[in-house]
């Protein structure tokens, strides 16, 4: 009886410890985000802790200053085409790698994941050198192309996971019923991949939107996305305005993630 109780007590201690670690981990993950959000609702000129002058001045500033508005515009100009291009690359790649009889399938699949595995900065330096030679530094389409390649692995994995859940023989049935290979692919497989494609586009967009590294290397002085503007602003001084920008930036991305999750839930075949 006593033994049993002791054991229970230890269990309780273990559980409590676990709970504490859990809470700390969550705090550690979201604290920076919360602090940035907190600061965005103050008007301190310097970063004090705790902040002292509450107000929406930063937001007002953000949405009226040309530099920030331009950055938002540039971000969209780059990220939307990059996201679309990513999906155009990723869907055929996933279908080919999953369905076709390909030699060295594993090696090819690994290649598709490389941009995700190589350290970002090193990869960016590599792209920079190539672009320098090709005269593509600062080129709009050059930037879009790189952003979509870098976003590709995550998008690829999303599409491939969805593809793996589809039975292989749906297309075959469609063909036996009189659909050409292409018609079968479009009517069945591609049609059933639409939700995954939407989520994958969204993730590619978020990926490109978050990127500062590649932009810093490839964009040249003229092109400043939101992420790069934050970066630049911090290079000269710790500007509280950055907090507001980061706050909006963050809320926007969170919103996209939530939308992505909802799309996925709603459309997943039960």
């Amino acid at each position, binding site marked *: 009886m006593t033994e049993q109780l002791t054991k229970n007590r230890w269990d309780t201690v273990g559980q409590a410890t676990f709970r504490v670690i859990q809470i700390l981990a969550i705090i550690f993950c979201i604290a920076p985000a919360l602090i940035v959000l907190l600061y965005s609702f103050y008007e301190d000129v310097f970063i004090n802790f705790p902040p002292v002058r509450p107000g929406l001045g930063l937001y007002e500033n953000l949405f009226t200053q040309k530099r920030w508005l331009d950055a938002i515009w540039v971000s969209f100009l780059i990220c939307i085409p990059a996201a679309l291009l990513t999906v155009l690359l990723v869907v055929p790649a996933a279908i080919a790698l999953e369905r076709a009889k390909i030699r060295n399938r594993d090696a090819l699949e690994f290649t598709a994941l490389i941009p995700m595995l190589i350290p970002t900065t090193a990869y960016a330096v590599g792209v920079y050198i190539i672009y320098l030679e090709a005269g593509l530094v600062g080129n709009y389409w050059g930037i879009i192309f790189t952003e979509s390649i870098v976003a590709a692995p995550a998008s690829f994995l999303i599409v491939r996971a969805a593809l793996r859940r589809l039975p292989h023989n749906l297309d*075959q049935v469609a063909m036996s*019923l009189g659909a050409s290979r292409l018609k079968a692919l479009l009517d069945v497989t591609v049609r059933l991949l639409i939700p995954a494609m939407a989520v994958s586009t969204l993730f590619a967009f978020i990926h490109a939107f978050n990127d500062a590294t590649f932009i810093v290397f490839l964009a040249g002085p003229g092109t400043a996305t939101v992420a790069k503007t934050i970066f630049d602003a911090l290079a000269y001084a710790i500007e509280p305005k950055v907090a507001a920008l980061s706050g909006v930036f963050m809320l926007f991305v969170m919103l996209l993630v939530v939308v992505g999750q909802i799309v996925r839930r709603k459309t997943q075949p039960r």
Partner: protein
Amino acid sequence: MLELIGVTKKYGEVAAVQSCTLTVNTGEFVTLLGPSGSGKSTLLSLIAGFTPLTEGTMLLDGRDISRVSAAERGIGVVFQNYALFPHMTIFENVAYGLHRRRWTTDRIRQRVEEMLELIGLPQIARRRPDQLSGGQQQRVALARALAFQPSLLLMDEPLGALDREIRDQMQQEIRRIHREARPSVVYVTHNREEAFALSDRVAILESGQVRAYDTAHTLYTRPANRFVASFFGAHQLFPAKAKARDGALEVFALDTTARMTAPGTPDGDVLLAIGARDIMPANGAASGLSVPVRIDDVVYMGDTTRLICRHGPSSTRIISEVDSHLAQGLSIGSDTVLDVRIERAALVAA
């Protein structure tokens, strides 16, 4: 009518299907039966046109379809996993092949209703596949495959994913639908009972080759070779010597001799193939081989009881399955004499 002539599929050097020749008559129900890896599904895929063939010719109603695309063959296909289009209603699923053939809307509606009537599910047109049970889904798959009136229907283990009870029901359904719609059918399974219950003829496949092709009855009672005898008939095989004498055959097996009249069977060193139900405890008057045995185990199976016995110095294993009331009083470890009813046996080449 489907004619396969020397159909071969090789992956590299390995032949998944090796010079397969067989004919399926119009309206006939043919089962391809074989253990896994015997090439039966590959053969089905070749007929459907999903897999390009390496050599040979396939004729469907006289037309050479060997190099024709799956879409243009006009062959219905049913898979084990039903493969209904999950984003379409039942109506749209059944109508898919008709749309591809550019039928008019009215004709399509009429035909789909007809098909749902045929499978006994007229109320489900608006539902989606995930709202149906497995058995219902498979019936819809059948309706979809038959809607455009193909002259040939291929089924790849269509009952494999269903529970036993539903499977028995579906067997009846398939028999009925085959009787009513009368397509030629090529049906793939590894289940002997399905082959017995459904087929007009059965093709036995092993390692990519057709080992035998005949009615289930003939394959069971007169197996062409030892593989058919053991795999299809589930027969026991005993080494035997056969010698023609006075218009009959004298067979020496299990250390005894008996006479049998089996026209056209091989002689010399052969194998005696016989089912467990045709071996029973001898009640005085043995009509075949009288074989003394020791009973190693008695397994009660309800209607029947299985006696697992061994015979002679080499402990040859003999299994006898008898009506349970005949097995009363037989106990493990006791000695008895079995009557191997030689007139029911078949001789196959060793």
